[in-house]
């Protein structure tokens, strides 16, 4: 699909265009919409955002490149970003991050062969009292340990399986 002319996004796009003094201010919310549609910020999404805002695609791409929450390559269905910054690291987040990569057989930033999981480390997520923690897509999962994480991975795997069966 596309984001332009897609009824799923029409109202959200209009609301964002209306709330600022300049069209350009809407570039960040529209990039989130493009990422939602395509799974990452690809050249189609960049082109559509540029068209909506009357900007050059290069200008939009520079914004997408500056901010870490816009993904410039495809990620797993569950994009797991583990905070390993100082406060979390004092509570064992480095070991947890290494264990999680090991558990999924991944290097830093890698995605599992089934396309389900990508693991990365990130800077402080403002959840320092609940370490170890991670961000799964845009939601926080806090006070983790290996047992809890294994349960979550199993839950996400079965949810993905149900979704796949539903499509079949």
């Amino acid at each position, binding site marked *: 699909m596309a984001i332009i002319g897609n009824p799923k996004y029409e109202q959200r796009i209009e609301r964002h265009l209306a709330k600022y003094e300049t069209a350009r201010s809407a570039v960040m919310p529209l990039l989130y919409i493009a990422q939602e549609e395509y799974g990452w910020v690809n050249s189609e999404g960049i082109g559509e955002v540029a068209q909506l805002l009357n900007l050059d695609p290069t200008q939009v791409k520079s914004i997408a490149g500056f901010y870490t*929450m816009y993904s410039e390559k495809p990620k797993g269905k569950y994009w797991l970003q583990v905070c390993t910054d*100082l406060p979390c690291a004092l509570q064992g987040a480095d070991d947890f991050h290494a264990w999680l990569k090991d558990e999924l057989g991944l290097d830093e930033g890698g995605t599992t062969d089934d396309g389900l999981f990508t693991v990365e480390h990130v800077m402080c997520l403002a959840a320092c009292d609940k370490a170890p923690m991670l961000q799964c897509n845009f939601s926080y999962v806090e006070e983790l340990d290996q047992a809890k994480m294994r349960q979550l991975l199993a839950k996400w795997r079965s949810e993905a399986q149900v979704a796949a069966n539903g499509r079949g």
Partner: protein
Amino acid sequence: MHILLRGRDIPNIKQLDVYETHGGFDGLRKSLTMTPAEVIDVVKASGLRGRGGAGFPTGVKWSFIPQHEPIKYVTVNADESETGTFKDREIMEENPYQLIEGSLICAYAIQAKAVYIYLRGEFWDIGAQLDECIEALRAKGLVGENILGSGYDCEVYTHLGAGAYICGEESALLNSLEGYLGQPRVRPPFPAQKGGGLYKEATVVNNVETLANVPFIMTEGAQAFKAIGTEQSAGNKIYCVSGHVKRPGNYELPMGATFRELLYEQAGGPLHDDRPFKAMLPSGGSGPIVPLTDEVLDTCMSYEDCASIGTIIGSASIIIMDETVDMTWVASKVTKFFKHESCGKCTPCREGTYWLDKVIDRILDGRGTADDVKRIADVAENMAGTTLCALGDFAANPIIHTIRHFPDDFAQHVQV
């Protein structure tokens, strides 16, 4: 008593009817019966200082806005990205209407046409909750045209960032909100001046916690607020405690309480009873580290007292490390943060953080020399004060102060 973290005392205060039952929007109602200048005078008299880190007097900041300019804005800094800081998040999650009320009082005081709440992108769910709050307020005539029949119009919007620490710096925040790269601007003009703020209009940029204090000040009066805390540091403060304590979390105490009271009575003391405290970063990664001695523990948590022990209270993001922690590793962790978050605009910060990180890695690997320790101190000293925003100074602090206070931690890694 909680003034800010009222969600701890009043169940469901995040619901509008409950917030209103407990005095919600009385501060705005009272403000609307006063002139804007009178509201600014009350906030000035309260002694409230900015809670984002710099501690600038809030009422004075508001008074810088030129009243004759036809268009003015309020921008709420909800970017909360300093390492170890998680206070604004709790305010917005558990007591969101108090932030919006404080923002509207500020907007009325400077006669702003709109409030933009700039949230870090990771606060996706909080942004959605605030959007719902804003719509609930619009339905009751508290946001939008002719607020409570006063004739004053003001819109409130949220805006999500997308993962960039630098957007907590006010001029980078404004650039980001305008759809440009989140990089700092050359000042003057300052945000409060025509040409320097949002869309080149005069703009107040205030932190979430700062604005959440304002409804109390308007309902209870400037003197009630000033009676809390110390002479130069009025009011309560939320202290975010993380690291090696038994009960990490947010604690709201008067400014001027001691570190000992916070760390032992509230946070439960050292995580492991047999591992004493070694060091503290009282203002996240960006402020000077201090050894956690008895003298420091007995210091009051105020702007003036923290200066006397060579550090700052800043945003009060208090990271505690016990005796097992190697300060070279701490310097490395904090340097990697600033290297990642440097926006790349100013050469000393962009290049300095890159080389500091490389040389500290070498030291930690056992391939460094005593000269390398001198070298990183030298690089850090040459970064401080040479950049458009404070990130360059922040990035120098972890190097300069860890080496100053804990030279043995570096010496153990290097060849003589």
